[in-house]
């Protein structure tokens, strides 16, 4: 029965700062908004698409997607209402597209609306999205928590440059979800109450939700697992033994699931030497050491990924040798050799490449020491990884200098800072990356030659290793023209294997998500493909 | 009752526990004081006078002292004798302030700076006499009237710093008298004050004693004051009593050597009557070193003309100067080589400012200072620094003018390091010689100022001033802070040096007896102006200006048979030296009454 179970307390150690996912890219904001705002379809915990505000998914088979792949038609479910009681119509969907694409609004989800030329609303429940070219994967807009539907009436005056001025709307959007916002304190706490007009009469079971933010992961874990003050804690990035210790207190349990997030080492194929001035870390100067594939391979072979998983993630991680580890059909098995550490092999490779051990155990070639600068963002687990990898590399005669950079600098794109991951003024760097939803097309396009960050494009671009291969570019183009799933999967795998066998990126760990919930909380289905709170309507109290 | 002593100190011994082991403050001191009697305790600094009085109040304990032996018998008001050594602090509290009142040495620091006079005065009254707020206030006004403080009502709301030193000391007296104590202990109540104020306060204590019949223990090291006040005298030395007797007997036939030395060291006003040139004092135990009069020369060495120094007073939103303190106003004089010109006057009349302006330690506003033909006021920074070789200064406060953090040797050597006059390796020798000269043991070279007595410190200051072999020394109250015996030594030393090296002194002082002893010429200052100037003999023996006359009259005479009566005293409050911007005082006009002896005829505020 709706509201029967009282209040549920959720802890996000990163606090939501806005409730409009279009104005913020942050996961915390998207997930906090997902209790209120909903898309047409979303992914379930297995990564499969499920209809949400529609009755069925449009496909080519059922005619929902045009045969030439240039349009898709959605039919809204019957009797959908906004939380203020007004009906949801196709105009709202169309408005959402206009909202995000209007000039000067700074919409974070622009990418999802790429290629949409128009949205037609033949009737109140029908939405037809037209693309400028055949779109083999047309489910980018309005699918998943990142692109929910906004109420046209509420946001009508918030288009373009006016978007930031609509504080009321941005903080308390009207939605179709199981809850409505009653109080929003940016970067602090959000309070929700059950949506009286929610489409399922007996849901949600909770009458109110408190989503508290702030602090760090350890404290969040403690609050759920040890003191029991909270019912749910999000994303507990903690060392496995710490988590195990907390769980032993018996107040709650951990849940984990895997997505596409892969912690990897990027190898710089260009020369980051400061002497080069403006030409630093550009393709004009190949890397003096790492241009040799044998060195890159040796670096990979020296790493014991099992131990990294054990130390850093425990049950929330698993060894991977791919940068595209999921969904299942995209996962390659061609590179599994990397799962075994092989110091001897690595040494042999380096010997073969002409790197000879010097007196202090560090290899030298042509008077040049095998010395690498290894950078990453500041984060306890990453620093442990750095230390471990430095040790393994020292066993194969590689000297490593470690550097950690504040995350807000490292991941910020400030062209003035030398420490951003795009500039990559280091030999190798480590971070994690994934992609939205389940389709890897855009993700795999990140390693096109055109994606290399350079001074000319203000260091914008995703191709950090500065990898450039005509064969790879051709594969990307081919995938963009392929509609059939199996064929797309084969192409993606091929691209993955190409990158892996060239050792331009060294995948380390396939990182899952760990969250914790109190024993008394039922209905949790941890979902990494969508919002973690996607099914909060089904959450309820259970007797301990 | 009249026959039994009100308090009796028997074989008192006080010890202080210090890091270096126990120190005896006083040992085996016995004396008594009767109702209606004034007992004076004299002795040089550190002889245990204060410790004795604090022991009587049982306040030594708070200073880290311990009464180790003896008895302190006190006759209580209600009758019955108590031994204060054995009473507990609760009983002591009822005696302190109630039955024994105490006036402390330092009027500047003995009052709590953050409470009003009224509050501090009524505190004791409300405690001992159990008066209500209004009654206490009324009584406080009465008390202030008794000590002759003008506008008593207003004073109650003022803070200590708003009163002059003399007034503060009178407040202290009022406070001590508040509960009509039967015993008053006055610990050097006038040492820090001007002669004029001192005279007033002595008269006041005397009058109060007569009116109430209380007993007074009066502590001082000034024999002239003793002569004015005492019925009986106790002389202390190194924590022991060395002599006791009636005041006339002590002055007429001192028994102990120390008492004799003490009396010999006191410069008495009138001693130099008829002698135009200064002479060294004869001190027992010292051979007649330089008994010749010091003549000096007739060559003018320092000429000051129309010197004017004003301090800006800034007010308002933008810190504009709206008024000036006219500290020195149109001052002119001439000092001959090898001679001493004394600048005398009350506190705040501008003596120090004048001295410092001459040396350009302060920038005068107008005037002319010529030192041996050099115009000092027009020199640039570096030239002025070089000129300082010729002119040095000895400061008023021997403690304040020495850096507590540096050894004495280093401080005396400092001027030598500032100028390349002597090769570096000779500096140490010269400093040692200077120490010999001022009769300080060479072992003191490595000592710090706090390890010396005041007199020794002042000698260091003199050695430092002499280091560069200057021609002119400005001595700003160089001996005011010293004990009489030490003062006499330092004065002799200065005069000897003058005779030997031909120094000129600008001698600033408010002590007329000292001035009479050392100076060739005298200039009397009042409110920034010189009111009378001339050869010392002329000014002292024939004072013309009314202010000079009053000043001379206030000086206590070290002779118990020549006590002054209170009504002789007549001082007016000094007018304010602060005038708004644009106020231009008239120039000083002098009349020459005899050769070199001039008197101000224009208005000076007196």
């Amino acid at each position, binding site marked *: 029965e709706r509201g029967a179970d009282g209040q549920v307390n959720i802890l996000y150690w990163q606090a939501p700062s806005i409730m409009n996912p279009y104005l913020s890219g942050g996961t915390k904001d998207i997930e906090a908004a997902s209790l209120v705002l909903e898309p047409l379809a979303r992914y379930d915990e297995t990564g499969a698409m499920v209809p949400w505000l529609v009755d069925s998914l449009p496909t080519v088979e059922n005619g929902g997607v045009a045969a030439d792949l240039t349009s898709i038609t959605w039919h809204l479910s019957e009797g959908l209402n906004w939380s203020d009681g007004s009906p949801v119509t196709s105009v709202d969907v169309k408005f959402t597209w206009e909202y995000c694409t209007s000039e000067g609004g700074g919409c974070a989800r622009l990418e999802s609306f790429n290629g949409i030329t128009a949205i037609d609303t033949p009737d109140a429940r029908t939405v037809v999205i037209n693309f400028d070219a055949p779109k083999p994967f047309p489910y980018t807009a309005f699918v998943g928590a990142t692109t929910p539907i906004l109420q046209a009436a509420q946001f009508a005056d918030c288009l373009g440059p006016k978007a930031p001025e609509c504080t009321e709307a941005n903080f308390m959007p009207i939605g179709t979800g199981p809850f409505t916002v009653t109080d929003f304190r940016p970067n602090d706490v959000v309070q929700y109450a059950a949506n009286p007009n929610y489409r399922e009469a007996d849901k949600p079971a909770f009458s109110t939700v408190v989503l508290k933010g702030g602090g760090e992961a*350890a404290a969040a874990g403690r609050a759920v697992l040890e003191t029991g003050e909270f019912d749910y804690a999000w994303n507990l990035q903690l060392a496995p*033994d*710490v988590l195990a*210790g907390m769980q032993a207190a018996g107040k709650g349990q951990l849940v984990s699931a895997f997505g596409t997030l892969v912690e990897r080492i990027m190898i710089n194929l260009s020369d980051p030497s*400061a002497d080069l001035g403006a030409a630093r870390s550009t393709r004009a100067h190949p890397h003096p050491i790492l241009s040799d594939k044998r060195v890159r391979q040796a670096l990979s072979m020296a790493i014991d990924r099992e131990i990294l998983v054990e*130390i850093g993630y425990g049950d929330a991680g698993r060894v991977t040798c791919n940068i595209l580890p999921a969904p299942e059909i995209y996962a390659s098995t061609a590179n599994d050799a990397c799962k075994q550490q092989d110091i001897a092999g690595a040494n042999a490779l380096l010997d073969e490449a002409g790197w000879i051990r010097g007196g202090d155990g560090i290899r030298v070639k042509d008077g040049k020491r095998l010395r690498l600068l290894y950078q990453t963002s*500041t984060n*306890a687990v990453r620093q*442990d990884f*750095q*230390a*471990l990898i430095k*040790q393994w590399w020292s066993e194969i005669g590689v000297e490593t*200098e*470690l550097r*950690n*950079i*504040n995350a807000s*600098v490292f991941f910020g794109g400030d062209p*003035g*800072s*030398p420490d951003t991951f795009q500039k990559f003024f280091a030999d190798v760097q480590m971070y994690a990356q994934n992609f939205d939803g389940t389709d890897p097309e855009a993700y795999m396009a990140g390693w096109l030659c055109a994606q290399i960050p350079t001074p000319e494009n203000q260091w914008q671009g995703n191709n950090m290793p500065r990898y450039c291969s005509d064969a790879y570019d051709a594969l990307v183009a081919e995938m963009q023209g392929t509609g059939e799933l199996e064929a797309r999967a084969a192409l993606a795998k091929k691209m993955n294997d190409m990158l892996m066998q060239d050792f331009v990126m060294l995948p380390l760990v396939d990182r899952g998500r760990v969250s914790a919930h109190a024993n008394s909380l039922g209905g949790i289905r941890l979902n990494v493909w969508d919002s973690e709170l996607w099914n909060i309507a089904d959450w309820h109290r259970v007797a301990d | 009752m009249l026959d039994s002593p009100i308090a009796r100190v028997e074989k008192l011994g006080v010890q202080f526990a210090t*890091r*270096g082991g126990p120190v005896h403050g006083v040992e085996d001191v016995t004396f008594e004081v009767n109702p209606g009697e004034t007992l004076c305790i004299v002795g040089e600094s550190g002889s245990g006078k204060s410790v004795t009085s604090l022991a009587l109040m049982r306040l030594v304990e708070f200073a880290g002292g311990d009464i180790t032996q003896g008895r302190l018998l006190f006759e209580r008001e209600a009758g019955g004798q108590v031994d204060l050594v054995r009473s507990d602090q609760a009983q002591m509290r009822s005696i302190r302030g109630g039955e024994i009142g105490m006036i402390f040495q330092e009027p500047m620091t003995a009052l709590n700076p953050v409470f009003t006079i009224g509050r501090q005065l009524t505190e004791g009254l409300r405690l001992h006499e159990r008066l209500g707020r209004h009654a206490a206030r009324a009584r406080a006004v009465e008390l202030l009237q008794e000590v002759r403080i003008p506008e008593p009502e207003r004073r109650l709301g003022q803070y200590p710093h708003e009163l002059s030193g003399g007034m503060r000391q009178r407040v202290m007296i009022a406070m001590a008298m508040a509960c009509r104590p039967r015993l008053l202990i006055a610990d050097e109540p006038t040492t820090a004050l001007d002669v004029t104020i001192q005279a007033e306060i002595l008269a006041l204590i005397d009058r109060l004693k007569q009116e109430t019949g209380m007993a007074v223990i009066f502590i001082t090291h000034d024999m002239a004051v003793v002569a004015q006040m005492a019925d009986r005298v106790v002389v202390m030395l190194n924590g022991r009593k060395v002599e006791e007797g009636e005041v006339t007997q002590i002055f007429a036939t001192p028994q102990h050597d120390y008492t004799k030395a003490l009396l010999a060291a006191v410069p008495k006003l009138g001693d130099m009557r008829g002698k135009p040139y200064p002479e060294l004092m004869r001190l027992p135990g010292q051979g007649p070193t330089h008994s010749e009069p010091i003549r000096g020369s007739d060559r003018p060495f320092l000429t000051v003309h129309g010197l004017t120094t004003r301090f800006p007073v800034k007010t308002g939103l933008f810190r504009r100067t709206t008024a000036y303190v006219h500290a020195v106003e149109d001052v002119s004089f001439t000092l001959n080589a090898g001679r001493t010109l004394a600048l005398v006057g009350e506190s705040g009349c501008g003596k120090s400012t004048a001295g*410092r302006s001459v*040396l350009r330690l302060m920038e005068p506003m107008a005037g002319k200072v010529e030192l041996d033909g050099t115009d000092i006021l027009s020199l640039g920074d570096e030239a002025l*620094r*070089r000129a*300082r*070789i010729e002119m*040095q*200064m000895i*400061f*008023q*406060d021997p403690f*304040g*003018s*020495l*850096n*507590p*953090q*540096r050894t004495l040797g280093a401080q005396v050597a*400092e*001027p030598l390091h*500032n*100028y390349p006059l002597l090769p570096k390796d000779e500096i*140490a020798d010269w400093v*040692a*010689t200077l120490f010999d000269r001022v009769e300080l043991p*060479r*072992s003191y*070279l*490595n000592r*710090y*100022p*706090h*390890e010396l007595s005041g007199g020794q410190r002042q000698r260091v*200051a003199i050695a*430092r001033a002499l280091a*560069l072999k200057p021609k002119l020394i400005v001595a700003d109250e160089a001996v005011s802070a010293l004990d009489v015996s030490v003062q006499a030594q330092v004065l002799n030393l200065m005069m000897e040096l003058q005779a030997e090296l031909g120094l000129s002194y600008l001698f600033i002082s408010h002590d007329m007896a000292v001035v009479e002893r050392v100076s060739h010429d005298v200039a009397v200052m009042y409110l920034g102006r010189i009111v009378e100037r001339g050869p010392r003999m002329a000014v002292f023996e024939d004072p013309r200006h009314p202010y000079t006359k009053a000043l001379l009259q206030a000086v206590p005479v070290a002779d118990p048979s020549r006590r002054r009566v209170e009504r002789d005293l007549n001082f007016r409050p000094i007018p304010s030296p602060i005038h708004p911007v644009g106020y231009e005082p008239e120039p000083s006009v002098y009349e020459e009454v005899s050769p070199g002896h001039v008197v101000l005829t224009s208005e000076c505020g007196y």
Partner: protein
Amino acid sequence: MTERAHLPPPRSQWHDVWQQFRQHRGAVLGGAVFLFIVATVFLGPLIWRIDPALIDIRARNQGPSLAHPFGTDQLGRDTLARMLAGGQTSIAVGLTAMLLALGLGSLIGVLAGFFRRLDAPLMRLTDLFLSLPLLPLLLVMVMLFREALSTAFGPETGIFLLIVVAIGVTSWMPTARIVRSDVLALKEREFVLAARSLGTTNAKMITRHILPNVLSPIMVSATLGIANAIITESALSFLGLGFPPDFPTWGRLLNDATVYLQDYPERVIWPGIAISLTVLAVNYLGDGLRDALDPRLRGR
């Protein structure tokens, strides 16, 4: 007067200071403990030769044992070795940053107090530094200077300099304030005027007369400064602005260990004790030094 002056055996000032210092029981104890800590962290590695960065994955999270007297951390690194290495950095950072802050603070305080004209601008500068947000300031410094320093001095010394400068530059203000007000009072003292009348130049005036007399407040700032620097360094590591990650410091060890507080409390205790002990020792040492440097208290 012509004979060679016979000078007493020179009694050096430092001898006096030492005499005085020796009598202060707390100070001697504090000094001994501090010396002990310094000696241990700098000489200890000669005896305890395990490399603090050596990872022994099999020996993770061990309690104290003979092989690892202080136990091991989550990567199996020897805690004792890390404590020793960390102590070197922490103490070096603490001391140098404190000295820098003290130097800057004293300089600015003395200049502001001594020269009227400099007073207002320097005090406004102090206000400015007090109100600058520390974190962005550090980020800017790291951005501007890390590369240059790294190439000039090598990465570790470079970062060391950067951190020391960062801490120093952001913690001199209280010292400057205190010193200034003391100098203002000192300037009115008669011995300063006396020195001027002796022809002492401004520079000499400051070094001879002003500085020695403001030593006591400076000493107090120094004691608090070391503690502050050690703790700030740990906060910097926490924010990712500190030393390279494989470079242990006490602050970082403490910080890393707080997550393990319940499971392995000893890991928190070691660096916690080390920091507290150092701070306490320095505090008592400072008390004693202050007394010893003041000749008025000497021999009392």
